[in-house]
């Protein structure tokens, strides 16, 4: 208890400190002066002599000759919008300006905002710091002589990638759209899936230099409030200069940074993220990253796939078992093979033992080293295939197949059974992409343990792995739930996938305040009366 309190206090102190720091920054900020030259000088100093910063001088009214300037960053602004809806009205609607106000500069800005510009989002600011910050995010600033306020116009527009098909999380029947690098597009994709007014995107900026826009997406009343608080606290604690990708955030907010297993989920599919949000999770979107984080993340999610929900439940359950077994196979198979060969040959059926022993006749390496070598080769091939320029891909696969498969066996370097084992393992390791990294590491550990201590070693490592997994938490939710701690109702979406009409409550382990998802008893059945009639006839 005291430790807990101390942590709280300590955390508060840090927060206070940070607030003071940021408050200090703002208090030193300069508000805009009446003098346009002065304002522009400050802007030039702050933005430097960068060539992409455009400061366009102009006169808004030829009669009164009011000096004004438009400040924006080339490339971040929609040029057509700028020319047609900002510059043109400012320069040609002179008459209106002249007619309506003579030289009332205070309301000049208001007038421009309300009657001249034909763009959607305009804000009025007084701080020059805010002007700088907003201009850097792509806003266009309008400053006028004699006005102590500036207009910030949202005329952002830059080259973006179109919404494309998901590259990594493929689905047969599901939607074919995936997130892009633009935060607004991503939030719009989610909004189109969940048209609930309580779907909320809370924005904040992270990164001392990058000022990356981050959005926390959740549905009020479904995502637990304390979860959102916790996420916000963790995000606000981040003090770094750049957030390049959503995985930067992941590494800052995850519960167990020293674990091999991820405790924060991520997806590139809007449908997956929407489904998870409606299960009571929260999503974190980052500008510039085509992935969304979802928390809390449970171990079983790694084995779930959007197609599970689009396919029929029985097949979905089968596929899930295949994935589970495949994953276990990808971790254990080399280790078990090595340990059987080294310590427990009696477990092989006699025929198999004979052929395995014959294949290993005259091989130079002990079976452990052979397995480790082949695993290493596979990792090299995999990594090379991943990073290599696409045009070279064919070369690697041919060389890999020849070297690892054919040549190694016929040269008598490795046994044919080992090649089969490693190949099976390699294919199985692609079944559960999310856990492929911990899987690869554990595969090496298991192989080593199996080679040194046989099944005993493998069992010990497995117990340790299980105990580690059981100790993990993802934002307060036990990683292995709903399996252990056991939650019977939660099991409907683990080893089996219950029909959608049967999953009438949200996963209980997520602790959503609104557990009811749909009304129960929606199993489709033929209308009673008509079927009876059919029978009698």
């Amino acid at each position: 208890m005291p430790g807990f309190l101390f942590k709280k206090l300590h955390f508060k102190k840090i927060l206070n400190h940070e607030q003071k720091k940021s408050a200090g920054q703002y208090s030193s900020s300069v508000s805009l002066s009446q003098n346009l030259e002065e304002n522009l000088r400050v802007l030039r100093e702050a933005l430097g002599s960068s060539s992409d910063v455009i400061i366009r001088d102009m006169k808004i009214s030829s009669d009164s000759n009011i000096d004004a300037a438009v400040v924006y960053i080339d490339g971040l602004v929609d040029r057509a919008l700028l020319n047609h809806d900002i510059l043109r009205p400012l320069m040609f609607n002179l008459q209106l300006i002249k007619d309506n106000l003579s030289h009332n500069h205070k309301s000049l800005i208001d007038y421009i905002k309300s009657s001249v510009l034909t763009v959607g989002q305009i804000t009025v600011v007084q701080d020059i710091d805010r002007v700088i910050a907003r201009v850097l995010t792509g806003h266009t600033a309008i400053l006028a002589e004699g006005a102590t306020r500036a207009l910030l116009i949202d005329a952002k527009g830059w080259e973006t990638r179109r919404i494309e098909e998901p590259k990594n999380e493929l689905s047969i029947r599901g939607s074919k759209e995936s997130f892009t690098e633009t935060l607004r597009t991503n939030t719009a994709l989610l909004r189109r899936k969940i048209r609930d007014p309580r779907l909320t995107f809370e924005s904040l900026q992270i990164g001392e230099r990058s000022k990356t826009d981050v959005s926390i997406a959740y549905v009020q009343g479904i995502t637990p409030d304390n979860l959102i608080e916790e996420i916000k606290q963790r995000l606000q604690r981040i003090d770094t200069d750049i957030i390049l990708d959503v995985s930067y955030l992941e590494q800052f907010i995850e519960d167990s940074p020293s674990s091999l297993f991820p405790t924060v989920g991520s997806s590139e599919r809007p449908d997956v993220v929407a489904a998870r949000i409606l299960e009571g999770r929260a999503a974190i979107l980052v500008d510039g990253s085509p992935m969304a984080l979802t928390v809390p993340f449970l171990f079983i999610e790694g084995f779930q796939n959007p197609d599970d929900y689009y396919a029929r439940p029985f097949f979905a359950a089968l596929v899930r078992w295949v994935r589970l077994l495949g994953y276990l196979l990808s971790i254990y198979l080399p280790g078990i093979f090595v340990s059987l060969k080294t310590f427990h040959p009696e477990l092989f059926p006699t025929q198999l033992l004979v052929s395995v022993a014959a294949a290993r006749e005259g091989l130079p390496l002990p079976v452990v080293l052979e397995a480790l070598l082949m695993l290493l080769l596979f990792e090299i091939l995999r990594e090379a295939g991943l990073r290599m320029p696409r045009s070279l891909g064919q070369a690697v696969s041919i060389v890999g197949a020849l070297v690892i498969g054919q040549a190694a066996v016929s040269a008598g370097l490795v046994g044919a059974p080992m090649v089969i084992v490693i190949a099976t393992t390699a294919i199985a390791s692609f079944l559960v992409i999310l856990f492929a990294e911990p899987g690869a590491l554990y595969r090496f550990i298991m192989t080593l343990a199996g080679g040194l201590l046989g099944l005993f070693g493998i069992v010990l490592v497995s117990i340790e792995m299980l105990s580690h997994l059981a100790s993990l938490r993802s934002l307060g939710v036990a990683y292995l739930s709903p399996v252990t701690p056991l939650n019977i109702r939660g099991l409907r979406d683990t080893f089996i996938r219950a029909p959608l009409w049967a999953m009438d409550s949200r996963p209980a382990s997520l602790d959503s305040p609104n557990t009811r998802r749909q009304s129960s008893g929606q199993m489709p059945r033929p209308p009673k009366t008509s079927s009876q009639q059919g029978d009698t006839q």
Partner: protein
Amino acid sequence: MLLENGKISSLQLSLLIIGFIFGASVIIAPGQQAGHDAWIAIALGLMEGLIIAGIFTVLTQHFKGKTLVEINSLVYGKILGNFISILFIWYLFHLGALVLNNYSRFLKLELYPATPKALTLILIMLVCALTVRRGIEVLARCSLILVTITILMAIFDTLLVAPHMDLQNLLPILDVPIGKLLWTSHATAIFPFGDAVAFLMVLAFVNKPEKSRSAVFKGILIAGLVLIGVAVRNAAVLGQMVAIYTYPTYITAQVIDIGDVLTRVEVLVAINLITMGFFKISVVYYGTVLGLAQVFNLRSYRPIILPIGILMVILALTNVSNTTEMFDFANQGYPIYTIPFQIAIPLITLLVAKLRKLPQTRGEQA
């Protein structure tokens, strides 16, 4: 100041107890002295074991949310209470060493004749230490998966060995002299069932204390029934030989031969032994370090995990010199040696608490 802030559910407690009881008893077949009547001995022992469990669960019902160490210092006062607590902790510590010894002996004899015992011991200990470090909650979570797997594998084994079973082997019933049978059943009551008294250090962390008692009973009962089943199976497969083999369960699995494909699966039984041993060692290990931390008012039990583990390994390596001695102790010495710890301490503490009308807060005596 909380040494442990995890909470376990009553289901997890039951499973933990099942794992704990399987712990060593799959290696040293309980009731083996009674030969093919082992199942009778286990059944009688199960009843006595339930009585023992009844005593210590009454104690924890009286002092909800308190471990034995805390109860002792409440009932006997600080000094005497801590003295008794240390006696009990010694029992846990020694029990851990005995189980470890059994394991390393089994591994040496059956699986890894060339591997030094110290190595296997240290590795088991390391895995247990890491789990104990993570707290009782994690251990309880592991129990669900591992105990389920073990029970499934036991059923699987039994099905596979079914063709070799001959229920005639169980006859004549009550073949052993009644005195020997009673002694054996007492030995079975003490080990494995009575050892559940170690849960006096764990029961405090059950999230619904009023359910902990029935959870303990359920756990012991299920474990007992499975053990009876295993004893019947072993006797039916092995016949009179069941009394002779050192590790009858292991030998029974050796008999399995399904179409020349599934043969010699006894290693799978060995895997079960290792996993279940993990629970027994971890629970007593946990009890030892938690108890010591409470006796000496430590702020956390984590720093003493490693030293205690090392001591336990050393005791395990030195306390028993050969297999015969181990079985002698398990069958002759242990049933008497443990009576003070399993029966006397809980019972006397309960009586003293009643006499002193403890705990005084509210009407919890009922």
